[in-house]
């Protein structure tokens, strides 16, 4: 079994990949892309694992890498339609929210990170994070009102 610094590679993956995959899926709305993202992120983090002081940092590092990769790769309008519950209109509308706004929403309302923690993951200021969140919600709300009419 492969080990890195005495740590079991497969064990690390099993331990951290599920959460990362859920995050990636919420960020992309695409299963295949989410898996690719997680694998890519995992490989990247493993490559730098020696620089991490302890395993506790692995999770945060992996999350940050997933978010950064998703923002860099995801086309803003890409939405996976197949298998989406028709009742979940909100999920569908998330597909047209800008990646960083979507990431801000996911980090705040799914990962339950504070503004400061979410800002750190996105590499922006807290003020910018609030702005992203606000604009993301506004975009969803606007679409909702348009649909309602």
């Amino acid at each position: 079994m492969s080990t890195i610094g005495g740590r079991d590679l497969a064990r690390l993956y099993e331990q951290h990949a599920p959460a990362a995959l859920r995050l990636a899926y919420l960020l992309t709305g695409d299963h295949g892309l989410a898996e690719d993202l997680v694998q890519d992120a995992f490989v990247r983090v493993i490559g730098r694992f020696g620089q991490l002081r302890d395993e506790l940092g692995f999770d945060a590092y992996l999350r940050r890498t997933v978010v950064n990769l998703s923002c860099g790769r995801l086309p803003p309008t890409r939405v996976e339609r197949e298998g989406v519950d028709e009742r979940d209109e909100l999920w569908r509308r998330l597909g047209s929210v800008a990646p960083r706004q979507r990431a801000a929403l996911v980090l705040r309302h799914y990962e339950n990170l504070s503004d400061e923690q979410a800002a750190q993951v996105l590499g922006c200021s807290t003020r910018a994070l609030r702005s992203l969140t606000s604009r993301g919600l506004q975009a969803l709300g606007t679409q909702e009102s348009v649909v309602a009419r």
Partner: protein
Amino acid sequence: MTDLETRLRETFERQAERAELPVVTPALLGRARRRLALTVVLSVVIVLALTGLGVWSVQTATTEPVKPVHRPVVPTVAAHNGDLAYVGGRLDAARLVIRHRDGSVSTVDRTRIEREPCTPYAVVATMRGTPRCGGFGSLLWSPDGARLAFLFQHRWRHAADAPVGLYVVRADGTGLRKVASCPTDRGILPCDLTDGAGQTWSPDSTRIAVSGDGRIWTASVEDGGFRELTRCPPCLDSHPAWSPDGQSIAFARDDGVYEASVADGSTWRLAALRGAVAPVWSPDGTKIAILAEDGVYVLEGVEGSGDVRRIAEILTPQRASVPAWSPDGHRLAWLVDVSSRAPRLGLHVDLWTTRLDGTPPVRVVQGPCCLVDQQSDARVAWSPDGRKIAVHAPGHTATGAPQGVLVVDVASGRLRRIPGGDSASPAWRPVA
């Protein structure tokens, strides 16, 4: 939390359930392993590169300045025995004079160095192109007082072409020997004959450094021959001053004062001063006095802390002489040509001293006691006990008599003229 946010949270949780954990495929682990291997390889390459860079840096460090660490030297405030060397005689009959305390005199006549007959000065002055007699200059006693070094400019028609040699002689006038001929490769003036500027002894009295041909040279007194210490083709290096600990030589370059390691000739700048000339080490080697275009400066912390402060302002067009440290290193003395301040009184200089303790400089002697010729360079030299200052102010008094060498009592400011005609280059002989 708004209704929208609540619904969004529920949507996220519901959708997250749809995400399934992919199987840990061999492909994934293979990618991770490759990535890890690449990282390791890159790390090794970086380490090797850095190691190589370090080795390269060490190898190339031979061209980088290796600055010596100067430690304070205990000044040797030796009592002098009263011997004073100077250049005496008329221009067409110059001789080196060593005046002993008991009144006896030892001399080095020009004819001991060059045998050609000397054209009388009256003829030289009226007939252009007539070869002039050779002359002495830049007298400097070795630190142990055993030998006097001087430069001799041989019989010449044009000053720029005149060969110059470095000589040494014992205090009793015996043991005259030529150490080396000054270089003229670049066609710039050979050794600088200016008093107090042209040469410097190593503290152990075994070597002499001179400025010549725009460079600094060193020579072993015993072995002779000059060895190039500095080379900076567009630069003009001058005024070498050997550090009291013997490790380096400070000198003037076009844009400031520099220091050169005696061991390998590497150079670095100590202070950027426009028109800086004549760095002079304090006896303990912790400070350097510098004559610059607009004043007299003192550089403290020659290790690199480099605090340069001006202790006296020289107003244009006044000129100042190279400052001289008292033997105990507590005072500096220099002359200021103040002719422009009182033109009716003629050309004259003031003698100034300062204690370097923050008190303002004191004018010990005020002209017109020290009339000088306009083109001459006045010099000062402390007696080894620090009580007197010999002033060389070449020129003539108001009555037309040769100025000669004046000795000033620092405490009282009283003057005493040393007879010897048109004498120059006073140099007290220290006693080891």
